[in-house]
């Protein structure tokens, strides 16, 4: 299965060892390729290494072995400054705990991720509003996150991740803090984004969530395996 475009994510033989004692092999021998526009879920029980894999994918951590190409660029050896720049431009994060700044408005929270990329000030508000439109949060632009429901907060966090037009949207247990109704709302947003061509990787321990994805990967004891439907 070859495509004309380079994969967004291309991991070969990735391993991450945490020095002991005892030495922990959180991830070993992982080969993972994600093409543009794919919706992949990585599912596994707690302690299986999925958080470590997320940190590696998101350039928050460095592998101890193997090669990782993001958009065709080998990122394993890049200095921290370049990795921060790549994080800002190529990757959007969605966290279980939302991580919205409590004292800033919804709009300011979305604007935050454009801050470290020198997006001209004039463009920021318009782009943030457009991103909030995509997650159906236009009616809460000037609200404080404290007044929003959990599902709404997570949609704001998704808008914050989308606003920089990242190559890869990384979600870590995006519905972990939500009730089923709110979780459904967030997953619907993911479906819509997938339909719009956004590349999505969702990490979860929840089978229902993972089943929404077009492609499922299971991680157990640091080993990755494709799940065939």
């Amino acid at each position: 299965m070859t495509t004309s475009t380079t994969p967004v994510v291309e991991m070969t033989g990735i391993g991450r060892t945490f020095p002991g004692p005892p030495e922990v092999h959180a991830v070993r021998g992982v080969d993972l390729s994600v093409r543009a526009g794919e919706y992949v879920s990585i599912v596994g029980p707690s302690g299986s290494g999925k958080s470590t894999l997320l940190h590696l994918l998101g350039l928050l951590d460095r592998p101890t072995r193997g090669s990782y190409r993001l958009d065709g660029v080998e990122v394993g050896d890049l200095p921290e400054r370049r990795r921060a720049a790549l994080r800002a431009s190529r990757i959007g994060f969605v966290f279980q705990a939302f991580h919205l700044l409590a004292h800033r408005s919804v709009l300011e929270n979305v604007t935050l991720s454009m801050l470290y990329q020198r997006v001209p000030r004039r463009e920021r508000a318009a782009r943030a509003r457009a991103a909030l439109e995509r997650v159906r949060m236009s009616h809460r632009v000037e609200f404080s996150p404290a007044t929003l429901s959990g599902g709404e907060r997570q949609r704001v966090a998704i808008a914050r991740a989308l606003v920089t037009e990242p190559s890869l949207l990384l979600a870590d247990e995006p519905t972990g803090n939500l009730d089923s109704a709110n979780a459904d709302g967030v997953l619907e947003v993911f479906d819509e984004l997938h339909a719009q061509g956004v590349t999505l990787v969702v990490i979860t321990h929840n089978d229902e969530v993972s089943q929404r994805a077009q492609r499922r990967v299971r991680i157990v004891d640091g080993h990755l395996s494709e799940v065939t439907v």
Partner: protein
Amino acid sequence: MRAGRIGRLGRAPVAWLRRGYATLRRVWRGLAGLRRRRMYLRDLLDEALAGVAARPARLALLTLGTVLGIAALVSTVGIGQTAAGQITQRFDEAVATRVTVEVRLRPDPDGTQVALARLPWDAPERLTRLNGVTAAGTYARVDTGGQRVSGRPVDEPGGAGRRDVPVAAASPGLFAALQATLRAGRVFDAGHDERGDPVVLLGRHAAERLGIHRIDTQPAIFIGDQPFTVIGVVESVGARAEVLDSVVMPVGTARARYGLTALDVVEIRTELGAAQLVAGQAPVAIDPNYPDLLQVNAPPRPGELRRDVIGDVNALFLVLGGVALLVGGLGIANVTLLSVLERISEIGLRRAVGATRWHIAGQFLLESGIVGLLGGLVGTAVGVLATVGVSAVREWTPLLDPRLAVTAPLLGALIGLLAGAYPAWRAAAVEPIAALRA
């Protein structure tokens, strides 16, 4: 062998230089990165301001230390300056109201000093007509032609009773101009002066040396064989202490009996604050034709005098203010460190959306700098108000250097920056993974 030794000696310093250079380059690249890459300085400022404004109650607590420190500094300096102004006015009155006029001297080719002009005999009358002059008198040393002074009419064998007591002449107004006090008797009057009466005043020390202890017996002293009636003894003088060692006769007496030809000096006492004015007018009043030939000695301008005093007063106050500021700075460092720990997840998020360690450090540094600046501004205002308040209660004229009001807030900002350095470094060291796990 030799090359080997040099190589061994040279290795360690070279390694240090390399390491130092690498560190410098990293710091420089980080700073340069802040400037040109990915983030405008204005954005950093916005973020810092928002961070400061997010918790108003904490902000008040944070600034409190700097407010107190800067307020203490400004008010102590201000009150110090104000008080110094009062001190000079109160305690240096004797110095501040004395003006003297002498004749300029010019060295002659043969080495002697030649007076260029002569002080007129009626100088005191001319001067007392000036506004601001409260008293004026003339003074001159008298040459008795080798005749010595004695307290008894008859010489003891060998001239043992004779003393080398200096003899001087004064106009009646001199004693008022010197603010002299008398132990006994009275000063001479214009009549003594005009008639050339053989009367003298004795300085306190001269009276002791001549054995004159009481004057109600109308004692006499002798210069050569000439008797002079002692009409008073001078206890103290505000200036020209040589008077206390001398026998002082009226100028008229000195002219008539010893051929006094010239006056040495005119002593003038002015009203408070009039010394500068009188000093300018006195030479013209004394010698309208050649005022430039007279030399006037006047007290320094009040400002100059005040500045000297301020230095002493402020040293202590500055130490107090410095201690207060140190406490304030430690307070900022402490609370900022607390807020770094509280905002771990915010730091993690910022790192995840592309902030470098430098962005994080810069933001926290700027936040504490802003806190320091705010504290400095409020503290300066409080300090100025305190100075004005104390002055109002004491009925003083408030004095405050305007440069202080400008530099004090900047000092606050500097303290904020210094205090924020360690917390900023801690914030920069936060690992995003650990921060986001919460």
